[in-house]
């Protein structure tokens, strides 16, 4: 098991470094596409904390993603760039607060009711922004200018530059991965996995499981907010679509496609999902049928669910897992 985990770590590290070199070789289009994928990877990892490690299947995760997007758009005066130092913590903090409040209610339910209540909260937010003038209605709001960090006269980071933005997102993705890995190895992380596996027994052992789930929910919401913040900056606008249930469904598919409860699986899932979406909706590849890309995407998800129960990550990690149990049997 030691060996296979090391091989996996090396593979992941190599992939991460490869991503680092990418913008030098490729076009702006692909640099932006990969930035988008890495943002979705952060979003998917945040959901994996709930789905894969705590056993809470949320169908409303886009609420946090969209809320952070609207937060930065509303905080920023028109024709000015958002201030990274204030708007990022504010947007993420708002999502954490929203998760804390809604978590108190949604975490009283479980199973299929949890799915429904998370969906309901996200829909309420969707209609709040869609039907009122608060966030520009269905047209949304534009963020015309992107933030820049300067030291005197020199620009350290200009997010208007596709490469700068790419590296900024890359760092965020690696940081979120490292942070979640660390948290999941802690007593807190182990308790979450215990709750996912057998919550009843955790309670009997003396764990106040509600508090643990609430903490996971807040953390997950905050990180989804980080992803939504980055997405709003990249696209340069927010509209109600970013907190629609399609978006919640898409991120859940990324997690399942990639392999829940592995953390790196959802990253792979984000790559697979967005790249497949690009391919299936590309008219040059599929002609008029490209309109119906959802059909092909659905088929891809069904195939993975049927033949790769551990998701795409299972292709990498499964031999190791089997070996671990065999070794223990000896």
């Amino acid at each position, binding site marked *: 098991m030691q060996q296979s985990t090391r091989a996996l770590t090396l593979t992941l590290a190599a992939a991460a470094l490869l991503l680092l070199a990418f913008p030098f070789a490729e076009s702006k289009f692909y640099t932006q596409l990969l930035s988008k994928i890495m943002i979705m990877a952060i979003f998917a990892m945040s959901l994996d904390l709930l789905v894969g490690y705590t056993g809470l299947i949320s169908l409303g995760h886009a609420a946090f993603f969209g809320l952070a997007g609207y937060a930065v758009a509303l905080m920023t005066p028109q024709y000015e760039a958002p201030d990274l130092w204030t708007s990022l913590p504010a947007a993420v903090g708002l999502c954490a607060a929203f998760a804390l409040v809604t978590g108190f209610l949604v975490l009283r339910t479980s199973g299929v009711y949890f799915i429904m209540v998370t969906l309901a909260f996200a829909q309420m937010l969707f209609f709040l922004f869609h039907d009122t003038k608060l966030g520009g209605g269905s047209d949304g709001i534009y963020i015309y200018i992107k933030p820049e960090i300067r030291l005197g006269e020199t620009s350290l980071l200009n997010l208007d530059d596709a490469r700068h933005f790419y590296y900024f997102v890359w760092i965020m993705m690696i940081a979120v991965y490292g942070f979640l890995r660390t948290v999941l190895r*802690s*007593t807190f992380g*182990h*308790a979450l996995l215990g709750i996912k*596996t*057998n919550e009843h*027994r955790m309670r009997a*052992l003396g764990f106040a499981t509600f508090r643990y789930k609430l903490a996971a929910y807040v953390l997950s919401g905050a990180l989804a907010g980080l992803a939504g913040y980055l997405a709003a900056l990249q696209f340069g606008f927010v509209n109600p679509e970013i907190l629609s249930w399609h978006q919640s469904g898409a991120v859940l598919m990324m997690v399942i496609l990639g392999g829940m409860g592995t953390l790196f699986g959802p990253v792979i899932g984000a790559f697979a999902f967005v790249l497949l979406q690009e391919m299936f909706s590309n008219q040059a590849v599929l002609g008029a049928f490209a309109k119906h890309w959802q059909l092909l995407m659905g088929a891809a998800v069904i195939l993975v669910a049927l033949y790769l129960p551990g998701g795409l990550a299972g292709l990498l990690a499964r031999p190791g897992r089997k070996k671990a149990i065999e070794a*223990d049997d000896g």
Partner: protein
Amino acid sequence: MGDPILRTEGLTKRFGGLTAVDRVSLELYVGQVHAVIGPNGAGKSTLTNLLSGDLPPTSGSVWYRGRDLAGLKSDEISRLGVGRSYQKTNIFLPFTVFENCRLAAQSRTPHAWRIFRRAEGFADINRLAEEAMEAAGLAARRDRVAATLSHGEQRQLEIAMCLATRPRVLLLDEPLAGMGPHESLRIVELIGRLAADHAIMLIEHDMEAVFSVAGHLTVMVNGEVLESGEPEAVRASPAVQMAYLGGEELLDV
């Protein structure tokens, strides 16, 4: 013996029309094994669930160290010092034996929110887990995944997890069921040793084991206490002999 550490008063649990536990009053003392016997369906497991907070009573009360446990949830009761094992094995199947015990021990420590340190890095938690495994005879199985253990070993793990939470009161629901004779003996000895500084409620069908450790015996039938008292006296009681001779099971020790 002093005051009971845990006692019940008129404890009753109804499931619809069925009264599974019917006005049960009993006392548990530190230093004593209180055995509860009775045929299947007598209400023994339900009684355990009422004491541990897994189920709320319909009426009656449970007192622990002079405190009414009404309204407390199972995790709160566990943290107060009432530990239990389950008749139907209830463990973390995908985790190793050590992790099962470590998690149990973790519930007792204030480190739970140290999110930047590895879970295995706390010497006090690890020691509790190792001691519990050792006591239950599972030290050699430390790194085995619980799902791959034999049924008897899973029963031992059930007890080890309860021990790792350092309870003052142990509620053991048929701990020996499914265990081999060698392990049974080991666990009975363990129960005898633990009795010195714990209060133990032992639900068990193995009469030899019951009479070897019990200082007090309660017989339940149809949710009610049929007889309760010093084990030899209870065994000799005509009501108990009748109930057992009348039913399928023979109290033949």
